[in-house]
């Protein structure tokens, strides 16, 4: 856990160690987990709609939306549906017991409310209710105009009571795609200018809402949906870098950047941002295929394959030869 004193600390890699404070079933198949700092310190603030990435096995991560309060909170809360066909992450969460420690990323936002919106139309499907809940909390705090449509199957309305208590008559619930269409399409056709729609739920529902909105003449920029997985760069596959001038071989494990690997070996490479934007760390490449992940090189330079930014970019194969 980073301490409360590090709210604006520039630490990129530093995740959080959290302890499970509470775990309970919300409804069949959906478990609610409350996480806290082991020493009881406040946790980093987050934007409504943010998620944390939970590390559940070596190199395995799942992202879950935060449902609780968002300003230096004393806990993070997630609600997780058991996915029998998944890789095991949700099963692992469902087996968590109070007192257990977990590793998680700091909150990241991929689904923030648009602050200039005149009105927010929030559409939740099933467990997709989780980020919608935090949108609703923020909308109430700041007096924003909003409506909610929550679609869930009988007995499976996670957070439905809590949401109803928060929203009052600003929420309607439906239980089939047909009902959703019946309520939503007229609503989409009749919204004040400057309304934004946010959908979180199963992929077919997100696609349907987007299509209905398009048919009603909504510009795509007003239609938002939750996309997990946006966040920092993936760890990448391991590879080896050969230094053309000395012949030295430098292995680059997954999760380590080429720049870090070189610096660790005492090889001096100038660098500044370590984010692929400043241009400081540029290296010449003699051979091998590059997986460019930077924002610095132009498309032509990337296509030429003669230079790379080792702070973020990697080898596309198992070997690269550098002009070093």
């Amino acid at each position, binding site marked *: 856990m980073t301490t*409360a*004193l*590090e*709210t*604006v*600390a*520039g630490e*990129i890699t530093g995740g959080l160690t959290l302890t499970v404070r509470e775990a309970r079933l919300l409804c069949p198949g959906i478990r609610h987990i409350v996480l806290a700092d082991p020493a009881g310190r*406040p946790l*980093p*603030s*987050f*934007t409504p709609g*943010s998620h944390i990435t939970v590390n559940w096995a070596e190199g395995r991560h799942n992202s879950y939306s935060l449902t609780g309060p*968002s*300003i*230096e909170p004393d806990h993070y809360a997630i609600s997780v549906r058991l996915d029998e066909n998944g890789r095991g992450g949700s099963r692992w969460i469902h087996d968590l017991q109070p007192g257990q420690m977990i590793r998680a990323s*700091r*909150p*990241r*936002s991929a689904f*923030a409310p*648009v*602050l*200039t919106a005149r009105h927010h139309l929030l559409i939740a499907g099933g467990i997709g209710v989780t980020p919608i809940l935090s949108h609703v909390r*923020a909308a109430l*705090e*700041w007096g924003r105009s909003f409506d909610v449509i929550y679609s869930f199957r009988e007995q499976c309305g996670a957070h439905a009571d809590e949401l109803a208590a928060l929203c009052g008559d600003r929420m309607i619930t439906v239980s089939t795609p047909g009902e959703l269409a019946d309520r939503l399409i007229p609503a989409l056709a009749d919204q004040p200018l400057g309304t934004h729609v946010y959908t979180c739920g199963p992929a077919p529902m997100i696609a349907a809402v987007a299509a209905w909105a398009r048919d009603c003449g909504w510009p795509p*920029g007003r239609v938002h949906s939750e996309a997990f997985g946006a*966040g*920092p760069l993936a760890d990448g596959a391991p590879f080896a870098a050969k230094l053309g001038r000395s012949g030295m071989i430098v292995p680059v494990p997954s999760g380590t950047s080429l720049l870090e690997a070189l610096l660790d070996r005492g090889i001096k490479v100038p660098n*500044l*941002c*370590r*984010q692929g*934007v*400043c*241009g400081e760390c540029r290296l010449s490449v003699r051979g091998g295929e590059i997986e460019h992940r930077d*924002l*610095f090189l*132009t498309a032509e330079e990337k296509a030429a394959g003669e230079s790379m930014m080792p702070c973020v970019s990697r080898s596309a194969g198992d070997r690269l030869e550098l002009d070093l």
Partner: protein
Amino acid sequence: MTTTDSRADRIARFPFPFPRDQYRYSTNVEPAGHSTDTVAGSWGDTRIAIDAHYHRERAERERILAEDPSRHQCLPHMVPAAWDAMLTLMRTLADEYPDTMTLARRGVGWYWKNDLLGIEHTFVFGDLDTLPAQPLVYICGQIQEDVVLLDQREGELWGDAGLVTFAADWSFGFDVGMSFLEIHGPVPRIHSENIITRAHNFLMRLEPGQSYRRTNWTLTVDGKLDTSTETYPEWGKDRRTLADGPLDEVGDRLFLRTEVQHLIRLAHSGAVMFLIRTYLLPFRDVASVPEWGERLYRVLEDLPVDMAEYKGISRTREPGMRWLLTHGNVEL
């Protein structure tokens, strides 16, 4: 503190902005929160810098703001971001100056204490009735930094709130509501080189809580902090009187002005906060560090005309260079 001490201190803490003899625009960002050594000392160990000029610069800000309240702007949708900025600045102050600043949670409210100003206050986040001023006005009255808040939407950043009293040749009141790309539209040479687009992409990818910093620089006459477009009639002529005046005065009248800008992603509102801290050092003090005098001369000599024009230093750089030639350890 004697005057000599404070002069030595000002030189030792000055963020000298030139790593080499030539200056061009670049996306010169680096992680914040570590100290950078210079030949004369070091700077940058904190994100918010409180120094010997705290009370004087605060008073100057208060005076400017009273004369021209438009220096503070907050479009209605930015109210949450302004609160977020205030709380983040308080948290940062409490973290970096634990001996004089305290932030604590008290039930539904927050307790804030600033011993430097004898302030003790309890407020409820988001409730303006519990604060003596708008959040940005309140907190900017307690720091030396200017603040700009950028909203991120539609794949762009927008300068929608801020409090800027120490602008160098620009006007926040004029720029408010513009996109980041529009604000930087007039900067020469950056388009062909893609610098602003790159900076823009970088800022949009900043993660909650992350902070970076960069420096920028220009020249200012007579050490004025406020050289914004609004007050041009008051300071514009200084450039001429300097250029036409005796060379001897240049060392004390012409200042190297460095802005240290911190870029911080606010965690709650998602806005990007720019902290802009202005440091001014007269040429005489610059030249008292031999490496600096020489380097400043080289940079000014090399600077292309369009960049000098944009920085508003085409009139002053010549006299500045001439003065440095005599006093600044420059070998031709």
